[in-house]
Every structure is written in structure tokens, then in C-alpha cells.
């Protein structure tokens, strides 16, 4: 699988590229700013771009804006945004605009290499990867009358994994549960929260996140 890595820190860029290469990805380009990123995507037509949100020259959201640009020009290229800080609202805005093949992770996640590779694969396959921090921020928020209180700890756990963008299959693997058990949990959760379930995985992510944020 062809991947472009964009990060203005050469050390980190190299590190990520190395991890990807070791796991069977073909890193076709490593770039340090948004302009170079757009050129690289145009030239090498990758399946996935891993992009640092903050890049020169402004060090604000150059990377994110480049990602939006890539999405509009090359809708098939998966986008995985990495950031030093996670911002739930921003994640949801981007996700609702580009639900297909989109990831938003804290940079630290690259250290848990296996998980990271799973996320990369998911995004490249058109799925979703939302940082657990975003999810826990949303889940951790206290509400005056909270339907989440009615969920069992297990259901909460599964809700969080759904929100991260994992499929039922992914949840089975993560929690070592049978597909049937997971399915029935998911059904219960949706019933308790009053969310209409849809078959589509990334639509499900969006529905869950939107619910959590409301």
C-alpha cells in the first residue's frame, strides 16, 4: 500500500515511515510542509496520506487544510491526521465533512505500533479512526441527566470503541468477545441511547459521536 507521510519534524517523520515500512507499507514520499504534500500526492497517487495537523509556515492548521484540499481533489486518498493536541469539536467537524477513509489521532498513538497499524489499515480501507482521547473527552463530560449512566461498564467500553471507528469485528478482537455478544451489546446501547443504527460503519461512528457531543 502506497503511503505519503507529512510532518515537519524529520525525526518523527522518519520514525513513522520506518514503522510503516516495517509493516509492509510502501512510503512513496516524506514531506515537511503542506505544499510539498500536495505535490507528493499529485505525483505519487498514494492510497493514504498521514498528515501532521500543524506544519510550517504558520504552524497552525496547515496540514489540516492541505488534507481538505487533498480530499476535494483526490477523494479516494485516505487521510490520517496526526496532532499534538486533540480537539473533539474539530475532529467531528472534519469527520462529518469527510466521513469516508478518515482518521484523527494523537501523535503518541504511533508508539503503540500494532494499534497504529490497525488504524492506518482501517482508514486506508475507507473506515474511520478517532482518537480514544476524543471519545473519552466526550464520554467523560458530565451531564445533568445522563442516559450514559444507564449503560453497563461493558456497554460503555463498546460504545467508546464504536466511537473510535472500530467495526464489530474490530471490537470482538479488541475485547475478545464473540461477534454475537458484541452485536447484542451494540443493539442494547442504541436502544438505551435512542440512536438509530445503520449498517454503515462510518455512519455509525458519526451517529455515536454526534450523540456524545450533543
Amino acid at each position, binding site marked *: 500500500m502506497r503511503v505519503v507521510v507529512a*510532518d*515537519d*519534524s524529520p*525525526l*518523527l517523520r*522518519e*520514525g*513513522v515511515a*520506518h*514503522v510503516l515500512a*516495517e509493516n509492509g507499507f510502501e512510503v512513496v514520499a516524506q514531506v515537511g510542509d503542506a505544499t510539498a504534500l500536495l505535490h507528493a500526492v499529485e505525483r505519487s497517487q498514494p492510497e493514504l496520506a498521514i498528515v501532521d495537523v*500543524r506544519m510550517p509556515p504558520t*504552524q*497552525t*492548521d496547515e496540514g489540516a487544510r492541505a488534507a481538505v484540499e487533498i480530499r476535494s481533489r483526490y477523494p479516494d486518498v485516505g487521510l490520517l491526521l496526526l496532532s*499534538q*493536541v486533540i*480537539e*473533539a*469539536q*474539530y475532529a467531528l467537524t472534519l469527520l462529518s465533512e469527510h466521513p469516508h477513509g478518515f482518521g484523527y489521532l494523537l*501523535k*503518541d498513538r*504511533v*508508539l503503540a*505500533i500494532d494499534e497504529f497499524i490497525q488504524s492506518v489499515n482501517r482508514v486506508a480501507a475507507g473506515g474511520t479512526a478517532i482518537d480514544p482521547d476524543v471519545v473519552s*473527552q*466526550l464520554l*467523560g*463530560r*458530565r*451531564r*445533568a441527566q445522563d442516559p450514559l449512566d444507564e449503560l453497563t461498564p461493558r456497554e460503555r467500553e463498546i460504545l467508546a470503541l464504536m466511537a473510535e471507528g472500530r467495526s464489530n469485528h474490530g471490537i470482538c478482537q479488541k475485547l475478545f468477545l464473540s461477534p454475537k455478544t458484541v452485536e447484542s451489546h451494540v443493539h442494547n446501547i442504541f436502544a438505551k441511547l435512542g440512536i438509530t443504527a445503520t449498517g454503515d460503519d462510518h455512519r455509525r461512528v458519526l451517529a455515536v459521536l454526534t450523540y456524545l457531543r450533543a
Partner: protein
Amino acid sequence: MRAGDEGNALPAHSPPRRIQGALGPLLRVVPLFTAPRLWDHRLMPLSVALPEPGAEEVVARAGARRRASVLLVSAVAVGLGIAAYHVQVQNAPQHRSWAAAWVAVSWTFVIAGVIAWLRRPANRLGPLMLVAGLALAARQLRYSHEAVVFTIFFLLGDLAFALVGHSILAYPSGRVTGRRSRLLVKAGYTTMIVFPLAILMLHGERSELRGINYLLPTRSLLVVSDQPHAAVLLQKAQVVIFYGLLASLVLVVIGLRLWRATPRARRMLAPLLLAAVALVVRALFENVHMFVANSPFTFPALFWWQIAAGLALPLAFLAWMLRARLARANVGELVVELDREPATPQTLRDALARALGDPGLELYFWLPERGEFVDSAGAVASLPVDDRARAATVLEHEGEPLGAIVHDPSLLEEPKLIAAAGAAARLALENARLHAQTRAQLQQVRDSRRRIASAADDERRRIERNLHDGAQNRLLALALQLSAAQRRLGGDAQADPEVDQLLAASVEELQSTVEELRTLARGLHPTVLTEYGLAAALEALTQRSSVPVELDVYGGRLPAHAEGTAYFVAAEALNNVIKHSHAQNASITVRHEGEWLSVEIADDGEGGARAGESSGLQGIADRVEALGGRLEIQSGGSGTCIKAEIPCAS
């Protein structure tokens, strides 16, 4: 300097004259007749001599002498009046009321003269009117049967009318200005001494010279030849010259004066000059009476006209003096008024114009840094050149001009009035200057506080960015390398499990360091705030809160300093809620109204929050105030409400 100005100008370094007295040495008033390009040249001192510093004793002694003189003069006036009355009633077949009326005119002149003399010793009009009054009484002694008395008072008596004319022309300053007026006065005196002298020399036994309306006694000691016709002819000639020609000329002079006068001067001149006109016109009818047989003017009518106008003249003068006193009382009110409300250039000008009775008055302010005057609207203004339409009085403080009053030149006749008003204006100006200075300094301090606060903000943002882009990235890269190394070793069967553990621990340690740095950076300045604004940052903040928070936050972007301050107010207040309040619920409301951002954090906890030394709340209060905003803390049994108003004009 133009050639024509040289006559008016004093040497460039001539010091301004000081006005001393109750107002103290602070006040200096310098009237300017010419407009100086710069402040310090072509000054002209006040026309009226002012007491020099330390002259109080001299003034006091002069006052005592004057009072003694006044007593003496009053005694003489009373004596002369009584004598004139008796002579008229007994010697001439004069009705008592006529005689009394004449004496009344005389005494009115004397009284007006005395009052003027006491009030304004420097003004010669007082003594002039006083002497005219005495002369009017003395004139009637010509009806005496004593030859010596008759001769003396016939010879000198008519000078009384010359003195009255002189008084009219000398009004109101006491000086007769202008060559024509001075000639008129001289001609008057000459006529009134030469003709009586000539008449006395021809006034013999056969003379039919008439007094008021009866024959004069014929006891001239100076008679040379008995020429009755010549005497009568001379008397008629005297009437024509004095009451006809000279009186007409006086009328013309008065008319010209009124015509040329500034509105304020005209208002002041009018009553007195109208009385004078009445008197002079009456003099003209003396001719009609004399030459026109069966003239419509009977003698009694003319007599009472003369009496009425003769009374009106000194009374008008007294009224003028009273008016001037009232004007000075106005200035007293001006001081109170200016003290009560803060003076703006416009209100100060208006108050001065009211107090001085000069609606066209303008107030100029001195700008030391520019070295020029500006008017009350702020436009650059130069002091007027024309000394007949406008005059300028510069107000000084410690040798530095503060401003200038551009006023009606008639005010120069009332130096005390302009000095008092000037002092009031000077105080107000000085006050306003100090206010402006204080405001400017306060503004400087506020500006520097704001700069310091925003510099601190910038610095926090810079450090936050450096942490993310520098240290955190490096640590992550390092952890990634270690992690990669660990994986590689993990594939190697001969690897030391301790090394594996060590590497895993290192990666973990690095990761938690990155985590700590992230928390630190967020505390310094949240990235979310910079990048996504206040609403997002507050949402992220409340997501970490253990107390449920209801958010109602303005969603637009605002200047960084306002967003930063609002965020830290909310963060610190929320921190307080979580730590101390035991609240069940809290709310954060942020509203953007005009140029203000209001941030309100309320909870339903125990209350007791207050800003104190080194407390977090004091810190945010300082921060809000540094931006020119305010922080209010209300804390009681039903919870705490912290409200910050932050200016957010970009």
C-alpha cells in the same frame, strides 16, 4: 514685523505685568493688541496703572487721604447747594422747586463723582463729574447782589457746562481720546471763559442781560464800557457757539462712537450717551428759544428738560458702575460654576462669555508642544491684530501661557473684571490641563499594562508552540526509535529480556513525559484556543470538568487577547468551582456585546469565593483590569457568580 506695528510693540523681552491682590501672585494677565507669531514678543501692558507688589501700604494711605477729601468735598457741595438755593429763591424771583431742582442736579453730579472716585481712583471721570457738580451749584451764585460774588461766579460759572461736556466726552475711561474730541473740550472751556469775561467788560448800568428769566444785576467789577447791545450780542454769540456749534459737534462725536463701538461697548455706552444726547439736544433748543419768536418750547419746558437730562447723566454713570460691580459678582459665580462641573473648552468659553457679557468672546488654548494657540474647537488660532474690534488677554501660569481670552476691547476699561474672570478661567484651564495630564499618564500606564499582559500572552503562546513542535516531537521520535528497536529485538530469539523490558519502560516513560508536556502546554495556552477559538476551548475545558457545566458561548472569533483572557477567567473560575464550591451544577456564559465580551461563571455551591493576595481569582482580576476591563465576584449562600467584562475592540 510690519512697519506699522512698531509703535505698539514693546521690546521682545518686556516682562508681562503682574496683577496682585486677592487673586495672589499666580495670576498674570497680559492683554495683547497685536498678534504675536510666537508667544514672547510685542506685548503691550494694561493701559490702567496697576498697583505694584508690596504697594498695599501706599494704597491704604492714599485711600485715607481720599476719604478725607471726600468729606471736605461733600461739605463744600452742601454749602454751595444751600447758598445757590437761597440766592436763587431770594434774589431772582425763582420758584422754590426750580431752585431745588438745580441743586439736585448739582448734588447728583457730586455724588456720582464721589462714588466713581472712591470705586475707581484711577479713573479721572469721578473727579471730573465731582467738579462739574460743584461748578453747577456755584454757577447760580451769579444771582448774588454782592458785586464780587457776582463778578467771580458770572466769570467762572459757565465753566460748569464745559465741565459737563468734558465729562460726556471723557466717558467712560476719564480720558478724552482723539484729537477732535480734545479740540472740542478745549474750545468749550475757551468759549465759556472768554465770552463771560468779554460780557462782564461791557455789562454796565444799561445792560438788559438776562439770567434764567429775569434781568441780571449790573454789578460787574470788570466793566470797561457800558455797551448793552454788544453785551446781549455777545451772550447770543456764546449761546450759538457753545449750545449750537459745539453741542452739535459733541452730538456727532457721540454718534460716531456709538457707530464704531463693539456690541458690548455699545450696550455699556448707550444709557449714558442717551442721557448726554438728551442734554445736548436740549442745548440746541436753547438757540431755538433764543432766536425764534413764539417758539413751541416754553421756557419751563426747556428748564425741566435740562433738569431731567442733567439728572439722567450722572445716574446713568452710576448705573454703569453698578453694572460693572454686578459683572464682577458674575465672575464670582463663574468660579463656583466652574468648580461645580468639569470644564470642557466649550462650557468654559460659554461661562466666560456670560460672565463678561461678551457673547462673541473666544477662548484660546496654548499648546506648548506646538507653540501655538488653538480655539475651543481645536483649530489653530492666532491672536487678533485689530485693537478696535477685538482684544486679547493672555493667561499665564509660571511664565508659561495657558490660554488667551479674545474679547471685546471695551473690557480693557474694566481691568479688574477681566483680571477676575481671567483668574477663574486660568484656574479652570490649569485644572483641565492637570486633568488631561493625569488622564494621559493613566492612559500610558493602562497601555503599558495591556502591553505587558499581551506580551506575557504572546510569550505563553510561543512557549506552548515550541513545546509541541520541539520537545514533544523529539521525545516522540525518540520513543518511536526505541519502540522500533524493541520490536526488532523482539524478533531475535537471543535477545536479553531485560533489554526488552528496559526499552518498553523507556518508551512508556517518554510517552508519559510527552503527556505531561502536553498538559503543561495546555496550561500555558491551549492550542485549541489559538486554533479553534473560545467556544471550542471552553468546550474542551468543560469536558475535563468533574462538575457538569452548561455552556452558552459566543461562537465567533475575537482578538487573541480577549479570547485568552476570557479563557483564563473561565478556567480559573471553573477550577475554583471544582476545588472549593461542592457545587452540583455550573454554567459558563460568554456574550459578545459591541466592544465588550462578558464572561460569566456561575455555580450553585457554598460560595465564599473572593479575590485575595496571590489567589487565582486576584490573578485573573489583574489580568482583566490590565486590559481595561472589570471583574466582579458575587459569592454567597446560593453560590458564586464571577463576571468579567473584557474590552474586545481589535
